[in-house]
Each structure stands twice: as structure tokens, then as C-alpha cells.
């Protein structure tokens, strides 16, 4: 029971571009406990999205291991991998790009339920309505096309799709960065609420330390693909040790306000 939900060990991913090798991720290790939020912060190009894609098996690593729910995640393939994906979900930054331009709200949620055999065809409309309510949306939204709803509603649909398969971990890559400030707060509250109710763990990627402070238990700060520092989110953001950590804190003006309040 005390084993971590996700263990990432010595992960590395290198890209070769024009004869040069870019170490997008180098020797990165961290763990995520059940029901915990771990934030990945760092400047642009520090490898945050690459780690997200590695953890989700969207790209293959050059080195390292990932254990998820006790299994070697890189050893899974084919239908076993697809089935396990139910437990490891993702929310993207741009909620418009994250959906098929032809999709409707209902279809997006229906796909997740159908693929993992969570509900029978006749049962699914009811499950879709329930999912929409869980993410704070009206069930009337179901027949709408994805491009016909607002950005905030879209991100709620994305969260609805992510929780549809009953995951234990959701990777959120800049999931609130594209939203305006008021909507951002609502979405963060929704995420906190879901975590409290269902003990979902989050790998929360953001360059905004204000947001990280508001939602994360622990934070890993990356610099050029390597871990610069890590620890309790409030402690690290309150007194960063690494140069990049200090730079990120000073670059976040809103932080002082949230710290004061």
C-alpha cells in the first residue's frame, strides 16, 4: 500500500536535429503518491512537455524506467497498454486542439466509455450526463459541437473525458494556462474538488508558480532537461535554492499577492 503510484527513474530523452543532440530530458527521477499533486515547473524548453509525453507513452524514452501502479509501464504494449491507459489520463493546454474538430461533447465522452467498456451503449447517455454534471456542466451541452462551446467549458469537457475512465493519475500539461484568470480559478477548484473526492493524483505542469503554489503538494523544478531542485511546493517557492528557481519566483509577480493573502 505504501508503494508510490508512479515512479520515474533516470528518465532520458534526446532529440537529434541536424547532427546535434539535444538532451530534452536527462536523468530525471521522481515519484507521485496516490492522491498527490506533483508540479513540474521550469522555463520554456526545459523538458516539461517531453516528460508528460514520456509518462503517457506518447513517445519512447532513450533511457530510464517508469513504474505505474506497480507495473513496468514501458513493458506494456498493444491492447494491454491501451487497457491500462484508462488509469493514466491527460488534459492538454489548448482545449480546442485537444479534440477532433468534428467531435461533439457527447462523442468525446462516449468514446472513452465505449473503448474501456465502462458502460453499455444504452447506458452511456446517462453516464455522459452524469460526467458533465461532475465537471460542473449542464447535460444539455452533450449534443453541441466542441467548437461551439467556450474555452472554459471545453476544458471542463477535457477533464470530464479524463475522469470518465476512473484514472488514478491525470497529467495536466499547462491545462489552465490558456484560460483567462477567472475561469482558471474555477478549473483549479474543480481539480481540487475531484482530487478530494476521488483521490486522483495529478502531474501538474505549469510555468506559473502562483498556480503551482495553489494546487501542488510538491514541486520539481527543471532546467534544461535536468532537475534543478524539488521539494514541498510552499517551501521551494518560498525559498528557492537553485538559480533557476529564484529566477522563476522573481518572474512571477502575482506570487507576492497570493503569498500576502
Amino acid at each position, binding site marked *: 500500500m505504501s508503494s508510490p503510484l508512479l515512479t520515474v527513474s533516470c528518465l532520458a530523452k534526446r532529440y537529434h536535429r541536424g547532427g546535434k543532440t539535444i538532451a530534452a530530458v536527462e536523468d530525471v527521477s521522481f515519484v507521485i503518491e496516490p492522491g498527490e499533486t506533483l508540479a513540474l515547473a521550469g522555463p520554456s524548453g526545459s523538458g516539461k512537455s517531453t516528460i508528460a509525453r514520456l509518462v503517457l507513452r506518447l513517445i519512447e524514452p532513450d533511457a530510464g524506467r517508469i513504474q505505474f501502479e506497480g507495473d513496468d509501464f514501458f513493458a506494456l504494449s498493444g491492447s494491454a497498454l491501451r487497457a491500462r491507459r484508462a488509469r493514466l489520463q491527460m488534459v492538454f493546454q489548448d482545449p480546442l486542439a485537444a479534440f477532433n474538430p468534428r467531435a461533439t461533447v457527447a462523442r468525446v465522452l462516449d468514446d472513452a466509455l465505449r*473503448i474501456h467498456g465502462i458502460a453499455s451503449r444504452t447506458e452511456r447517455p446517462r453516464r455522459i450526463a452524469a460526467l458533465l454534471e461532475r465537471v460542473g456542466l449542464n447535460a444539455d451541452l452533450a449534443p453541441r459541437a466542441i467548437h461551439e462551446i467556450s474555452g472554459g467549458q471545453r476544458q471542463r469537457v477535457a477533464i470530464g473525458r479524463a475522469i470518465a475512465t476512473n484514472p488514478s493519475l491525470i497529467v495536466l500539461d499547462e491545462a489552465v494556462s490558456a484560460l483567462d484568470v477567472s475561469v482558471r480559478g474555477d478549473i483549479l477548484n474543480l481539480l481540487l474538488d475531484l482530487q478530494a473526492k476521488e483521490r486522483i493524483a495529478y502531474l501538474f505542469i505549469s510555468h506559473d508558480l502562483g498556480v503551482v503554489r495553489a494546487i501542488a503538494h510538491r514541486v520539481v523544478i527543471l532546467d534544461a532537461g535536468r532537475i534543478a531542485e524539488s521539494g514541498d511546493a510552499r517551501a521551494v517557492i518560498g525559498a528557492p535554492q537553485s538559480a533557476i528557481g529564484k529566477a522563476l519566483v522573481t518572474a512571477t509577480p502575482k506570487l507576492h499577492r497570493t503569498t500576502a493573502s
Partner: protein
Amino acid sequence: MSVLRRFLRTPEAIAGAIILAALFAMALSASLLFPGDPQAIAGPALLPPFQDWSLPLGTDRLGRDVLAELFHGSRTSLAVGLAAATAALVIGAIVGTLAGFAGGLVDEVLMRITDAFQTVPGFLLALAFVSVVGPSLGVVVMAIALGAWTGPARVARAEVLSIRERDYVAGARVIGMHPLEIAFREVLPNALPPVLALSSVIVAAAILTEAALSFLGLGDPNRVTWGGMIAEGRTVLRTAPFLSIIPGVALVLTVLGVYLAGEGVVETTAVRRSLS
């Protein structure tokens, strides 16, 4: 409705639409206006056009009604043109999607096959195929499609290569969708517009290829075809040139109409896409 209005704004599109409408009207009314066998003898041989109003376009070498043949021939041209183009687009879209989406060895093999087909001129391919398998409508359709699917395959592959990097494809993988479902349900429909933009050219080429095959006597022998009519008229070209000219003009008009209407459609959808 406004799409139709926008489509009908350019004179080329209007001309194309009128020609196509006339063609479809001909094809649909052929058996109403000219019931019975168009290849049956209807009057004296080699009657010139505009002499006898029961046979307005005259008769051919065997005394067959040219107008009836023209109407029935439009059916063959349209049917073969549309069927062959559809087959070519379907095959091309499937091959292109598989190649682009799977990548690696599958891509390599499929694209080498595409190359091989593309290096052989489409008409030679069709000629060889029909000569070996024997002329019938279905074989002619397949033969033409065989030489026409490579263009759509390339366009589909290029489009799929760009679409497969989009977030929503990653999203589909994350929810555990099967790769084939991702390829054909998520990616292919979004890759179709530029592929469909090729359809008018392919239909026009297919109609011409069908005519050429029929001209060489490799069309379905049980059907009237414009190419067959031209070939038939060739033997009496000096004395009765109209027998070749009439189906020839019909063929040119048809190809022009298909092309113009197709350009109009492409224009309309391009405008709509740039607006959205």
C-alpha cells in the same frame, strides 16, 4: 443555401453546373425518351442530322439513331467516370492514410507500390488490365481506378502526416483508442478536403480514359459509349464526319463541365475555409 449561392457566383461554375445538369438529365431520361435498344436499327443508314425530325441527329452506318446513342452513351460516361473516380479516391485515401499514419516500414512499402503504379502511364495500365481480364463495365471501372489512385494517395498521406502530430490524435491515443480507429475515424475525415479537391480532375480523366478504351474496342460491348461511337464513325469519316464530331463534342463538353464545376466547388470550399 448560401453555399450554393456562393458556388454560383463565378461564371465558370455556372457553366459547369449547367453542363453537368444537362448531362445528368440526359443520362436519367435516356430510357424514358429512347426506350428500347439504342443499338437497334431505326431508319436508313447514314441519314445526316436535321433532315428527319424523328431522327434529329441522323443515323449511323447501320441506321442506328445517333441521338438515342448519345443519350444512352452519356450514362456509360457518367457511370464509369463517377465509379472509377470514387474507387480511385477510396483506394487512395485508404492507402495514403495507412502509409502516413503507420509510418516506418508500412509507409515505405506502400509508397514504393504507389511509385510503381505512378511510373506506368494510367492509360497503359488500364489497357493492359482490360486486355487481360476482358471488357465489362466493372473491369473498365477497376482498370481506370488502378491508374488514378496514386494522386489521392499522395495527397492523403501528406495531409495525414501533418494531422497525426496534432494534440487530438495524442488525445485519442491517451484514451486508448485502437490505432486503426484513430487512423480512419479521427484522422482520415479531417484529411479528406484536399483529397476531394482532386475529384473533378479524376472524374474528367476517367471519362476520357473510358472513351479511349471504348474507341480501341475495349469498352463493354453491350453498352453504347461515346468512344465507341467515335470509333464507329471513323470508318466513314469523309462521307459522314458528324458521326465522329457529335460524340466528340459531347465528350469535350462533359469533361469541361466536370472540370469547371469541380473548380467552382474547390473555390467555394476554399472561401468557406478561409472565412472560418
